[in-house]
């Protein structure tokens, strides 16, 4: 048994909860991996903020069309049924409640559902992009993240200390150790790695963990 899930395994677990035909926005970077792990027989339609629905994987190197990119400015391809639209329509899809799921990265998540994922503080050039828009409007806003920071500090907290992206917006968190829902201002533990005790998980979490019903074993294939 591994000590914790790899990024690919966290992405795999998040992908299992995406229904066939769901409209999905994946945040730039780590969340983009979720697209690779859709279960057989299911096909989500991916949205990118710069104006494409139903884009596909990157083209082979040398075959890029640089007018056909995603929000991370990487070259993509189109799937049958794709559509282009301008930026105001794109964010109408985001804020207007039309996306089924947004899956985002996080620096910190609070038990209130507050998310911090755009700024680590006042140093350097600030940049926000679509982060603050994406946390509002999707029917489900999920976060995928390491359970603790590189130096072992909790990322799941009672209150975020970094600048907020949005207030009370996250409903589910997939970490390297567990799956948790946020309900009524509390983290509800749904799944955890079988080798990890509740107390050990609590010690790595900066907010109280609650149990409501069964806590399942978090099983993910080797990837």
């Amino acid at each position: 048994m591994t000590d914790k899930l790899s990024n690919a395994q966290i992405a795999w677990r998040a992908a299992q909860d995406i229904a066939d035909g769901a409209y999905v926005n994946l945040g730039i970077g780590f969340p983009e991996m979720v697209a690779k792990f859709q279960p057989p027989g299911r096909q989500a339609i991916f949205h990118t903020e710069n104006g494409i629905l139903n884009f596909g994987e990157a083209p082979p190197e040398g075959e890029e069309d640089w007018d056909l990119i995603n929000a991370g400015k990487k070259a993509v391809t189109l799937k049958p049924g794709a559509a282009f639209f301008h930026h105001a329509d794109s964010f109408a899809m985001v804020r207007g409640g039309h996306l089924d799921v947004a899956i985002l990265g996080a620096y910190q998540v609070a038990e209130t559902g507050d998310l911090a994922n755009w700024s680590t503080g006042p140093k350097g050039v600030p940049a926000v992009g679509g982060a603050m828009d994406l946390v509002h409007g999707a029917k489900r806003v999920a976060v995928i993240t390491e359970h603790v920071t590189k130096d072992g500090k909790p990322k799941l907290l009672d209150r975020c200390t970094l600048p907020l992206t949005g207030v009370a917006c996250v409903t589910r968190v997939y970490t390297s150790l567990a799956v948790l829902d946020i309900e009524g201002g509390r983290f509800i533990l749904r799944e955890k790695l079988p080798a990890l005790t509740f107390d050990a998980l609590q010690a790595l979490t900066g907010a109280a963990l609650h149990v409501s019903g069964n806590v399942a074993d978090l099983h993910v294939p080797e990837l």
Partner: protein
Amino acid sequence: MDKTIPSLAEAVAGIDDGATVMIGGFGGSGAPIELIHALIDRYRTTGHPAGLTVVNNNAGNGHIGLAALIEAGMVRKLICSFPRSADPVVFTELYLAGKIELELVPQGTLAERIRAAGAGIPAFYTPTGFGTDLAIGKPVAVFDGRSYVQERWLKADVALVKAETADTHGNLTYRAAARNFGPLMCAAATRAIVQASRIVPAGGIDPEAVITPGIFVHSVVLVADPAQEEVLNRRKANYFEEVQG
């Protein structure tokens, strides 16, 4: 009616010092490189226009297009959502030295502020940014139990936009995801100046296929084989070296 302008130099001739200029594009897709370079050419010859406020999603890359406009010293203030990219060295250095002003706007709010200006809506409420540092000082109101931030329209004197096909009436189509901010910026600017890869007579674009109706467009100039910003940057193109030879 013919909105065609014979040259890039004439297309950008009327842009004044201190103007607010919207520039289409998201990263390299849709960046009107030739219009921007024509504007820099004019500044290097005449010293005008200077002190511009530029609206774009990003802050430019490398030493071409928007980055070159900033590097030339023509930009006083940038209004954008994401001034960090692969190679934003020009903006980064000026910003950290306190030599250029930045108004950071969430991307969807930026789009909607531009759309609202074109639609004659002076302000609107959005959930985006509520409770964050980017909403400080803005009015907040509760609708149906949820809090929203008031944001204002964003108008411009000029928009510089890259289209695929234009007709002589200014009706436009775009190429792939290069559309992005183009239709919004055309409507939000007092003067929308468009470079198009193809200009056709009125009737040359199927009305069903028009993306930006010509009423929002004031000038069209032909750039038959336009440069693509990402392609230029991948071969390390530099406006200043190429112009000076």
